[in-house]
């Protein structure tokens, strides 16, 4: 699984890097950044999922090999 942040949607709530500091970090203005573009390590996937589910702007997308899931609450 990989993760991306949509820069047009992110407004810097900061929940992603608060909840999953080993997957995301903040830039100088407090916007979220994905730390590593590659696959998310297995032990970090849960954190990445929580961050995606908690982003109030739904700016985080989890990309799995088979399907793409935007962090919508459905």
């Amino acid at each position, binding site marked *: 699984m990989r993760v991306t942040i949509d820069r047009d949607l992110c*407004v*810097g709530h900061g929940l992603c*890097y608060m909840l999953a500091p080993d997957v995301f970090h*903040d830039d*100088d*203005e407090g916007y979220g950044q994905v730390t590593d573009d590659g696959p998310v390590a297995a032990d970090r996937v849960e954190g990445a*999922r*929580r961050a995606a589910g908690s982003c*109030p702007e739904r700016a985080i997308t989890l990309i799995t090999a088979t399907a793409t899931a935007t962090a919508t*609450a459905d």
Partner: protein
Amino acid sequence: MSAGEAQPFTFEDLPVRDDRDAAWRLIRERGGIVQLEPDIALTDHALVEAAFRNPAVFSSRQAFDSLGSPLPLVPIAFDPPEHARYRHILQPFFSPRSIRPLEPELRRQLAELIAPLPARRECDFVADVASVFPVQAFLTFFGLPLDMRDQFVAWKDAILALSDPSGAISTDEADLRHAGELFTYLSELVAARRGVPGPDVLSELLCLDGDDALTDAEVIGLCFLFVLAGLDTVTDALGFGMERLARNPDRRQEIVDDPALVPAAVEELLRLDPPAPFVPRITTAATELGGRTLPAGTRVTAYIAACNRDEARYPDPYGIDFHRGDNPHASFGVGVHRCLGSHLARLEMRLVYEEWHRLIPHYDIAPGFAPTVKFPRGTVGLEALPLVLTPGAAR
């Protein structure tokens, strides 16, 4: 009132004063988009997103006129693209990286406030802690002397009294005079710090040059907004949060036992009780939303506390749960106006819950006291929260 509406229903009818959970349930039951005199109320997160992500139509420009500021409130009363310029300039000063260094000093101030309380066996949490600490945090952040605290409280109370949720503007002489004094104080402060380097936010903002330079009017409007947006909100969130913790000893015990749960508790308590539960926009053109046609000039208000109780997003939405995996609450707003002070506010709340429970793990609401909410008002909070403090092992 349009035909087909069950019965006239107004903002003032909401039982926020005595039972806010009931108020939010009542409005949610009426649907995602509801005529709630004098506004159109949005109670559904998806509709709030649709509106707030479209600031060209759902504008902030005139939505805050009722706050009675003498200058345009930067950045809350601006739309993109002007708004984006302000955020770009301001955001680095309010980012987690900039806020974090305040922690030791704020924690020290807080321990000083809380330490004398157990000996008294009782206190009013709102008066003794929640209304005092956010003002101190604000003064610390802005590099102003802490002895301005009580003066700021008086000014802030006056400006908030001048703003009324229905848009009426108070003409009370004393309030107007206080608002004028704050304005004069801020103008003089800005003049004195202009171009004089210093470590605090205000000095740094005033030293910006080139494209980022801000005029005096912009900085004063900004400071005015900080006073309006950054003091009572934290006070009110803390009062509500402590009331919930006092009423739910099992949940409280969880954070006493495991302080690492405090950040999750901050989010959950804010989800249940956003202190700014009514966030307004005004339509610039006729538009469709949630199956309704809204004429230009419609005041559309996001009911954040109702959105935060969406059954589809939150199992048991009226319950307190510090272990919710996802908590995408909208208490700091949605979209480009997302609370600029959210990281400062979170730090303040985390420190209060940590220090309080470290020093005073056992407390109850004073027997016979029923906390009531200041309402109708644009921001809501408890009038008072008398607590009895039971001696017991502090950590």
